[in-house]
């Protein structure tokens, strides 16, 4: 398989060398760039996978169906958010479909399976969501990029936000699993650094949603603020339970942005006033964002969310890298170097790549007003993940 692949790449290289001498017909015969989309299209995260795919294709279509001037051929795999199937699915794209780039995925467990495979095969991987710190930390690699966030990044800015408001004691509530723990650590690090005291860490097993016992605890402790991370159905239930337990209005609630993203329709007014930090939000008036939102709605009939932005940026990043090597994927070193230096003019605001290949980006403070997560300010400018354990950083 590998020899076959190398032959293919050599052929590509020869082609590209030929293309350097201006010869139109040969250029037109360049094979398409093979892009593997490995995302969830069924199950709990189906909507996220679809949003990422839609936005990625939107960016490609805006460039005439090309990235870096080369046409694109897609190979799509539904990863089902099943970590057990991740290595097999990734291998299928790498070995059978011989893709040049893999874009994926949403679920952190699946991402880790993909990371393991591409660290060996050397295939370029662009992650448009999953925030597991280790992917751009201890397991970082030159061919692994992320256009979304690290879990740590989404709660680190909250530490200062709380202290600026004079809330010196807090309780953190989350699921006891990797993402929850990373967000807890991010918040704790910044909060303690600024002099706050995290009085209690309340956790429950993922994906349980019986919060009453923890809410009773929080009420008894009476911290000046409660910080939470849940997502999806769990987040909706938590926000409702928090309000029903009479805590809303008594102890202000903060969270990672995922606490209030995609659930505001479901929770009625239970989330009103909740403040969260994330790298995207509603009402961001940035030129790139306005254009992106109009184009996305025109193409798909619904408003884009943070996942769509991350998918869009994955295409922008690839376009930048491929543009620098004139679409020649065999010049991998230069391609990676160009992607590392890319400044992405994203709908979320411009961002750059960290040495560990995770975005250095602004985190916004957002407040729930009606059905929107309105951006009320920047909680942390140009925040980089500490990338602990990464040899490239």
């Amino acid at each position, binding site marked *: 398989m590998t020899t076959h692949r190398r032959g293919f790449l050599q052929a590509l290289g020869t082609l590209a060398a030929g293309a350097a001498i201006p010869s139109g017909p040969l250029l037109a015969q360049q094979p398409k760039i093979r892009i593997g989309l490995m995302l969830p299209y069924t199950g709990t995260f*189906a909507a996220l996978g679809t949003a990422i795919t839609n936005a990625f294709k939107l960016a490609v279509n805006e460039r005439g169906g090309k990235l870096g001037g080369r046409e694109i051929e897609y190979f799509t795999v539904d990863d089902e958010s099943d970590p057990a199937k991740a290595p097999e699915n990734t291998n299928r794209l790498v070995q059978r479909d011989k893709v040049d780039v893999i874009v994926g995925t949403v679920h952190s467990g699946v991402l880790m399976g993909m990371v393991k495979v591409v660290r060996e095969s050397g295939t370029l991987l662009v992650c448009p969501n999953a925030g597991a710190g280790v992917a751009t930390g201890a397991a970082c690699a030159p061919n692994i990029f992320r256009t979304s966030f690290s879990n740590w990044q989404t709660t680190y800015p909250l530490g200062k936000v709380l202290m600026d408001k004079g809330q010196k004691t807090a309780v953190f509530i989350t699921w*006891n699993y990797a993402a929850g723990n990373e967000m807890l650590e991010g918040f704790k690090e910044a909060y303690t650094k600024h002099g706050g005291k995290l009085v209690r860490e309340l956790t429950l097993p993922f994906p349980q949603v019986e919060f*009453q016992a923890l809410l009773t605890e929080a009420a*008894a402790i009476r911290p000046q603020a409660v910080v939470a991370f849940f997502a999806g*159905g769990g987040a909706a239930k938590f926000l*409702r339970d928090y309000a029903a337990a009479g805590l809303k209005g008594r102890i202000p609630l903060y969270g990672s942005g995922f606490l209030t993203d995609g*659930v505001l329709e479901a*929770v009625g007014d239970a989330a009103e006033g909740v403040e969260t930090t994330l790298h995207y939000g509603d009402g961001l008036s940035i030129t790139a964002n306005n254009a992106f939102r109009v184009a996305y709605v025109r193409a798909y009939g619904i408003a884009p969310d943070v996942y769509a932005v991350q998918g869009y940026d994955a295409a922008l990043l690839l376009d930048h890298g491929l543009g620098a090597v004139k679409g020649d994927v065999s010049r991998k070193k230069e391609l990676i170097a160009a992607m590392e230096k890319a400044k992405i003019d994203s709908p979320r605001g411009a961002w750059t790549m960290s040495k560990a290949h995770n975005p250095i980006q602004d985190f916004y403070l957002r407040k729930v007003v009606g059905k929107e997560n309105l951006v009320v300010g920047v909680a942390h400018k140009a925040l980089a993940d500490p990338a602990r354990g990464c040899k490239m950083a």
Partner: protein
Amino acid sequence: MEYLIQVLNGIQYGLLLFLLASGLTLIFGIMGVINLAHGAFYMVGAYLAYWLAKMTGSLWLALPLGVVIALAIGVLLESALIRRLYQRDHLYQVLLTFGLILIFEELRSILFGNDVHGVPIPPALNFSIPLTETLSYPVYRLFISGVCLVIAAALYFVIQKTRIGMMVRAGNSNREMAQVLGVNIPLIYTLVFAFGVALAAFAGMIAAPVSSVFPGMGNQILIICFVVVVIGGIGSIHGAMIAALLIGIADTLGKVLLPEYSGVAVYLLMAAILIWRPQGLFQAT
């Protein structure tokens, strides 16, 4: 005071667990059919509540309509599919009902999409009683507890004290003999299965306003329901009730006292009880 409230939380969670497991107690405990699709029926109920409450504008109207639809689904499934498997090995029932989970999940995705939806709490019950300075207790949760108690009492009465309950029990302990004695077992089983489905769906409808409505919600409750039925003793209604309360309190206190191990508290309790009484707390009567 705080521990008193935590015990109240535990009892309230236990009653909710009983409501969730009651349909399974009927189908698994009394009919002996391993019904993995119990969680799917719970989800169907929640989505029915969401859809019907939106259509009619009131949860009170949605509840009876939803129960009727769930009964119809139950009758249909039993007579078309489940009926063929009574004489077969449990493995066939597991395969069939697992297939039903996939079908219901896909239908849900096609009909309602993959978003999280909310069902408003009926205005009459949408307030909270203050317990301490910082904590209030939502009245709708107390209402759920009340409904659970009523259902438990009704189930117990029907199974233990009425003629139809007697026929159900007879069919469970010896199907052929009951049939020889003139009991219309196929009809009874159709009814029991339909009621089991309706109970699961009802639990989903009643719980929808507090739990929200979202993909995969049924899978979350399935295992804990089996735990309730197994600890309580297969086929015993009051066993299931006591098991549900024990689990509710163990889970709640586990979260408070041993947060690191709260995930296993329930299963430790189950292991301990099954070592002590392998048949569960109570024998089927």
